[in-house]
Every structure is written in structure tokens, then in C-alpha cells.
């Protein structure tokens, strides 16, 4: 149906020509869902824009052929392309809210497409637009017709984008990271909907994603792209079981899935024995009846509604939930950047919630409670070098100066695996993984007793995530740290934590040992979260530590 041969795309930039895609060939047959997987900059999105001929200014197709049902997509006139777009091939995008015209009613946006492709007249456009909304399972479509994008949730916006894309019954749907930025349960709902619609209408589809697990779950065949070339293709089970190319092997290894330990995320040659962790029964931190209420626009907002839990010395507790569940508020209060409305935070025998957040900088326990921030880029001062960043807590709280300071900084850099030559670089000169290391070095600089990890790997590519997770496990063993790991990613929590707390709407819905919660969830909410997590197929490889024979993907529950 779609044949791409030796496609090459380049961009004219201020620094000369940059090749984004360098000669790739693939096919999409009728009724097939093809996944294109790669990290950002691998050329996967550019490929799809090139097929639609909607490349950004400066981008051109340099070589190769793209044929859709006998039609030359590279050379046909712009007028013909306009007929193909939306009617034959259409697209859905990431960040659905931005993908819709913010000041036009969604119903009218659907009508624009219908009218343009002569699928509707002025008289029946409204009815057809409403039908298109109903087709993507939007309840109360009549009312939604008149809504503006800002009035709808992210998941709802993505459904509208789907409705626009599917309004004219295209034969090929290209989905470009359709669920990035959506909550995990919404992600599943949107992906299931898209898959069902594709199957129902016997369409073909290309799913572009950075998530190998997601692609494996929804696609018939997968292409792995790196630096503008396809390094491997095959069916999901084959790619997961016997990846051929070192790059895809590394990605497969790094993708967390059921039944693996944190070490198995690393390439085999880097795997060392898992460290021995000492967990005591002594509580380090006790949270009692913690509440936080903001003054919102329309009445008070109850972000945290009286939660209680304990973190023992040496323990790693996972705090899981979707956005808006109160997990970030809780961590802000525990790290003493925010004051609680009521409740106690007993740390080392004292209620630290009684010390106001603004005075805590001068408190003697400041050095004991530290945090690794979510976005490494955002958490490093752009005007400070890595050395200055790591020096900050040592100078301010540790009162270190001169040679002692330099020695400690270098010791920390070695501890987190940051080459000393990088210490004098600014954040924009460091890679994502290196920035994460700088952030971790800063957080452990004063050997805190309690470290809060605020989604420390959420912004990282899977292969770097694997390295950072292992580093965190090693540090915990070496320094005897206790962690509170805040995350929306159940896989990450399973790999890192001994104890799990699931939050929803400011309340704890379930907590218990990680093993129990993951394999035998009690609350419905935890069950739905577990069900929504992508389940990559099991693999048939024999590693040094684990002999896994189970290859049946969906039968395996997500447990440790």
C-alpha cells in the first residue's frame, strides 16, 4: 500500500545542511500497523512529515521514492497532495491540545476538513461532524461540538484530533507519539481506541513512538531507527527475543518489564552483582495525618487529604499516582519547600513540619533531607558549571572551602560516574545522563539520611534511564540512603522500591510491600493502573542471573 525506498531528508540550517533521514526503505501493507521506534532526533517524525510533504521550512526530500497506491508522493503536485492529506493519509500528533486551533470550536474544525474534502455540504456538515465525534466514542457529542479545545481534557483533545484525522475515512493513519504527555490510563484508552478504529475500518497505520514497549503491544511489525537509518525491523516478539543490532539490543535490555531486575536493564557486559541492601525496622520518617489545602479560584483545593505512612531506615518507598494525585505536593512538604496545612512529619524524633519552609534553610536538618529533581535540565542553574552546582550545598551547608572542597567535589564526581573533565562544563554542554549525574551528586553531596527522588528518570531516554536507576541503587547501598521515589511509572517503582504507596485524589488508596501490591493489587484503582502499563513481550534469553522461560507476554503479571 505504501512503499518507501531509499528516502533521504535533509534540513537547511544556519550551520549548513543536516541529514535527518539517510536512505530508509520500508513498506506498509493493507491492514498492517507498523511501529517506528527511536529516540528523539532519530528521524522518525521527519519521515512521516516527509511522506505527507509537510516538512518544516528548510526541509527537503533529497532522494528516494515514496509511493502510495501507485501515486508518487515525492513528485505529485501540491494540489494533489492536498487531496491526499486528510482523505487518503492523515495524521494525529503528540500534544493534542496544541494540535487544535485554540480559538475555533472543535466542531467547526472537523467541518473544515469535511467541507474541504467535499464530504459534507453546508447543510449536513454539522450532523456529519457530530457523527465523527461519536465515532471516536465521545459522549454527549452535540455539546462537545461547541466546545473550544481549552475546555477539554488532554485525552478528549486527542480524541478530537482523531476525529479530524478520521473524518474523511483515510486509508492510512500516521500517529506521531499520540500518547506522550497523557496519563497512563488515558494513554491506554486512547491507544485502544485508535487500534480498534484502525481494525474496524481495515485501515493501515504507522505508529511513531520512543516507547518500545508501547510499540510492541500495539504493532504488527516494528522498525527501529537511529540517526536517520533503520537499524532493525521485525515482529515485536522477535525484536524483543533476539534483537540483532547492538542498538536495538541495548534498547530492549533497557526497557523495564515484568520479571527483570534493575541490573538486567544494562547491557550484559556492564552487569555486576546487585548490591546487598540493608533495610532496618527503625522508622526514619513518619508522616501522620498530613493535609494540604490551597486557596483555589473556585473554592479550596484539597491536594492532600490526611495521609499517613512511614519510611524505615534504608528503605525505598515508592509513591505512585497520576498527575494531580497529590504525590508532588507530598514530596514538596517532606523536603520542606512547602508548608503543610496540618499534620506531622516526624524525622529523627522531631516534628519538622513545625519548622516553616522558609526558615528550614537554616535548620540543622537541612543537610539530612535532600532531593533529586524531575528534570535535570531545569534543576541545574544554566549559569553555573557542574563544579559550581555540586559545590553549592558543600559551601553553604558544609562550610567547605579551598582544597577540601575541590577534593570532595571530585570524590563525588567519581562516585556518580561523572568524568572529572566535565566538571567545568555548563549544563548546555552536558548530555541528559550527565546532567542527571550532576543533580544526583549535588543531592548526595552532604550524605543525607533521606533522599526524595522526584521522577528522576522521567525526562530521560530508556537507555540512560537504565544507567541512572542502577546508579541510584548502588548509591543506596553504598551510602545507606533511604529513598522516597515519586513516580507515575510502575515499572520504575517496581525496580527501585521495597514498599509502594498508591495515591489518588490526595488519598492513599493502597500501600504495602512492592511485591504484594504489584502482583496482587487490592484496590480497583491500582488494578487499572497496572492494566494500563504497557506490557512488552517476554524475551527468550538466558542471562547470567535469571533463567527466564516464560515467553507468553500477556499472561505474565507485572511483578517483581
Amino acid at each position, binding site marked *: 500500500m505504501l512503499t518507501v525506498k531509499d528516502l533521504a531528508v535533509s534540513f537547511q540550517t*544556519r550551520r549548513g545542511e543536516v541529514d535527518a533521514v539517510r536512505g530508509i526503505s520500508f513498506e506498509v501493507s493493507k491492514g498492517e500497523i507498523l511501529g517506528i521506534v527511536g529516540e528523539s532526533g532519530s528521524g522518525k517524525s521527519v519521515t512521516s512529515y516527509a511522506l505527507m510533504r509537510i516538512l518544516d521550512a528548510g526541509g527537503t526530500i533529497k532522494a528516494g521514492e515514496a509511493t502510495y497506491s501507485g501515486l508518487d508522493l515525492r513528485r505529485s503536485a501540491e494540489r494533489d497532495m492536498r487531496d491526499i492529506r486528510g482523505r487518503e493519509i492523515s495524521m494525529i500528533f503528540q500534544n493534542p491540545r496544541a494540535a487544535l486551533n485554540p480559538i475555533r470550536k472543535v466542531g467547526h474544525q472537523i467541518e473544515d476538513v469535511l467541507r474541504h474534502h467535499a464530504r459534507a455540504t453546508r447543510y449536513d456538515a454539522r450532523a456529519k461532524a457530530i457523527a465523527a465525534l461519536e465515532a471516536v466514542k465521545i459522549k454527549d457529542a452535540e455539546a462537545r461540538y461547541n466546545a473550544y479545545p481549552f475546555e477539554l481534557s488532554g485525552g478528549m483533545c486527542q480524541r478530537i484530533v482523531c476525529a479530524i484525522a478520521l473524518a474523511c475515512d483515510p486509508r492510512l493513519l500516521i500517529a506521531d507519539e499520540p500518547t506522550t504527555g497523557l496519563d497512563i490510563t488515558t494513554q491506554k484508552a486512547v491507544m485502544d481506541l485508535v487500534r480498534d478504529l484502525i481494525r474496524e475500518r481495515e485501515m493501515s497505520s504507522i505508529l511513531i513512538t520512543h516507547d518500545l514497549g508501547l510499540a510492541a503491544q500495539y504493532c504488527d511489525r516494528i522498525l527501529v531507527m537511529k540517526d536517520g537509518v533503520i537499524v532493525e525491523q521485525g515482529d515485536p516478539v522477535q525484536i524483543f527475543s533476539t534483537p540483532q543490532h547492538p542498538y536495538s539490543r541495548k534498547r530492549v535490555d533497557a526497557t523495564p518489564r515484568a520479571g527483570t531486575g534493575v541490573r538486567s536493564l544494562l547491557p550484559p557486559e556492564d552487569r555486576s552483582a546487585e548490591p546487598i541492601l540493608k533495610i532496618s525496622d527503625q522508622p526514619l520518617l513518619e508522616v501522620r495525618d498530613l493535609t494540604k489545602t490551597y486557596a483555589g479560584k473556585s473554592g479550596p483545593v484539597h491536594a492532600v487529604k490526611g495521609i499517613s505512612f512511614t519510611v524505615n531506615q534504608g528503605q525505598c518507598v515508592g509513591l505512585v499516582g497520576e498527575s494531580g494525585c497529590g504525590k508532588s505536593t507530598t514530596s514538596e512538604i517532606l523536603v520542606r519547600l512547602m508548608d503543610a496545612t496540618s499534620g506531622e512529619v516526624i524525622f529523627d524524633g522531631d516534628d519538622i513540619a513545625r519548622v516553616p519552609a522558609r526558615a528550614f534553610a537554616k535548620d540543622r536538618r537541612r543537610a539530612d533531607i535532600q532531593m533529586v529533581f524531575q528534570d535535570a535540565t531545569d534543576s541545574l542553574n544554566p*549559569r553555573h558549571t557542574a563544579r559550581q552546582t555540586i559545590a553549592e550545598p558543600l559551601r553553604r551547608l558544609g562550610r567547605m572551602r579551598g582544597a577540601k572542597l575541590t577534593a570532595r567535589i571530585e570524590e563525588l564526581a567519581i562516585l556518580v560516574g561523572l568524568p572529572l573533565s566535565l566538571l567545568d562544563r555548563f549544563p548546555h554542554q552536558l548530555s541528559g545522563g550527565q546532567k542527571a549525574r550532576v543533580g544526583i551528586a549535588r543531592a548526595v553531596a552532604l550524605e543525607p539520611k533521606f533522599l526524595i527522588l522526584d521522577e528522576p528518570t522521567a525526562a530521560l531516554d530508556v537507555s540512560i534511564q537504565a544507567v541512572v536507576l542502577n546508579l541510584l541503587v548502588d548509591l543506596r547501598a553504598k551510602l545507606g540512603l533511604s529513598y522516597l521515589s515519586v513516580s507515575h511509572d510502575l515499572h520504575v517503582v517496581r525496580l527501585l522500591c521495597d514498599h509502594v504507596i498508591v495515591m489518588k485524589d490526595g488519598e492513599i488508596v493502597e500501600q504495602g510491600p512492592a511485591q504484594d501490591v504489584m502482583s496482587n493489587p487490592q484496590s480497583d484503582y491500582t488494578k487499572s493502573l497496572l492494566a494500563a502499563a504497557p506490557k512488552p513481550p517476554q524475551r527468550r534469553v538466558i542471562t547470567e542471573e535469571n533463567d527466564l522461560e516464560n515467553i507468553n507476554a500477556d499472561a505474565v503479571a507485572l511483578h517483581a
Partner: protein
Amino acid sequence: MTEISQHPVAKPRGNFDHILYVLRGNPVTLIAFGMFALLIFSAVFGPALVPYDPLATNATNALQPPSAAHWFGTDNVGRDVFSRVIVATRLDLSISVAAVALSFVVGSILGCIAGYWGGWLDIILNRFLDTIMAFPLFVLAMGIVAALGNTIENIIYATAIINMPFYARLVRAEVNIRRDAGFARAAKLAGNSDLRVLAFHIFPNALPPMMVQVSLNLGWAILNAAGLSFIGLGVSPPTAEWGIMVAEGANFIVSGEWWLAVFPGLWLMIAVFTFNLLGDGLRDIVDPRKRT
């Protein structure tokens, strides 16, 4: 761990390299830097180098068109227009630099406070700025100079007051978006007090856009000061100042003696143009994405 060796980063490039790189790609900015140097030169050394005393009258040599002896001609009382135009650079630049410096400092402090602590401080500052901005700014400057008295200092104060809201709003916005940034929170965890976080972590990051604003504002401040003296406020004759020279020359334009008004006006325009180009160039260096 392997990831380091496999992720070679771009060569470390200093800020200076980056500036050179942008300048090479943008000759207009280079020219602007050159013109800026020239302006500074005439402001500093101009009075010592000009061929004639800018205040010396010579009735026998009045209203002479430009010639080899008098490059820009002479005015109605025989003063050399070229000397007056060059000498005026110092006064015009001083007024605008002083005014911009004043509004920069006051605006930064107010903007920092409002942007960082927010709450009622923010509301009060916003109301105050709204009130200033509710006047057409040049008209407010007129009113202030008229009320405070007709002196050069008051021109500076008036220009500073009407510029201040721009700085305060810019700093407020820049501080506000960084108030909860990861690095600001990390600085607090490292034991910094609020004031230290604000002064040493957040404010320095707001400086690049401020510099762009300073450059653009210098041009605007010169325009304002010249405009005020054009309508007879501030500088009084026979002081050499571009606005007042244009005003005096305007009377002779209808009879064809164009050089009296055109040269000082042209110089004024070039000065403002330089600062605007410089501002655009700085914007390129600071943030290539905001190119317009």
C-alpha cells in the same frame, strides 16, 4: 558506565565563541557595534576634538550652507553645526544612560520583589505600574517635567519613570517563571535563604533579556529626551542638544535652510538606530529563537 563514552557532547563552546559566531553570520550587528563605538568616542572625546567652539557666535558667517570649512554649515547666529552636533552627543547619551540606569535599578528591585514573593506586594506593584502605563508615556513625561521644574535632572527622572514599568514587568516575569524552577528549589535545599536564591540564582538568569531591553530602551530614552527639549522642556538654548537644534532649525526649513535641522536630526536618528540594531543583535545572541 558506558553511556558517557557513547554520548560525546558538542565541543564545549564558550560564550565568546558564540558571540563571534553570531556576529559573523550577522554583519548588521557588527556594523551596529562599530557605530556604537563611534558614538561613545564622540561622547568622550568629541568636545576636545571639534573644530569650532559650539557656542561661539559669528553674525557675519550666519546661515552658511555646508562647505569644506563648515561641514554641516552654520546656523542663524553663525555657530558651526558640525561642532554642535558632535558636542551634543555627550549630553544626549548621558541623559539616556542615566535615565535607563535609574529605571534598570529601580525596576529590577521592584520586579524581583513582586515576581518572587508575589501576593499583595505583586498586586500593589501591578496597580502602580498600571497607573503609570495608563498615561501616554511621553505625555506623562511632559507633565512630570512641567511639575517638577524645567531642568536636565528632571528630564532624567521623567524618562526614568516612564521607562521603569518595562523593566519591572520584564524582571517580574523572568523571576516569576524561575521562582519554582528546579535550580531555584535546589538552591534552597543547599541552604540558601530566599534572598540569596533570588539574588545569586534567579536574577542573574534574567540578565540576558534585560540587556536586550536596555539596548532598545537607550534608543527610546534618547528619543524621549530629544522630544522633550524639542517642545522646550529641559535643556535650554544655547546648549547644544539634538532636539533643541532641530526645533531651532525647524523655523528655517520653510525658507530652504535645511542643514540647521537635518544634521542634528540625522545624528539623533543614527544614534537611536544604532541602539535598536544593537538590541536586535543582542537578542540574536541571547536567544536565537526570538528573531524577528
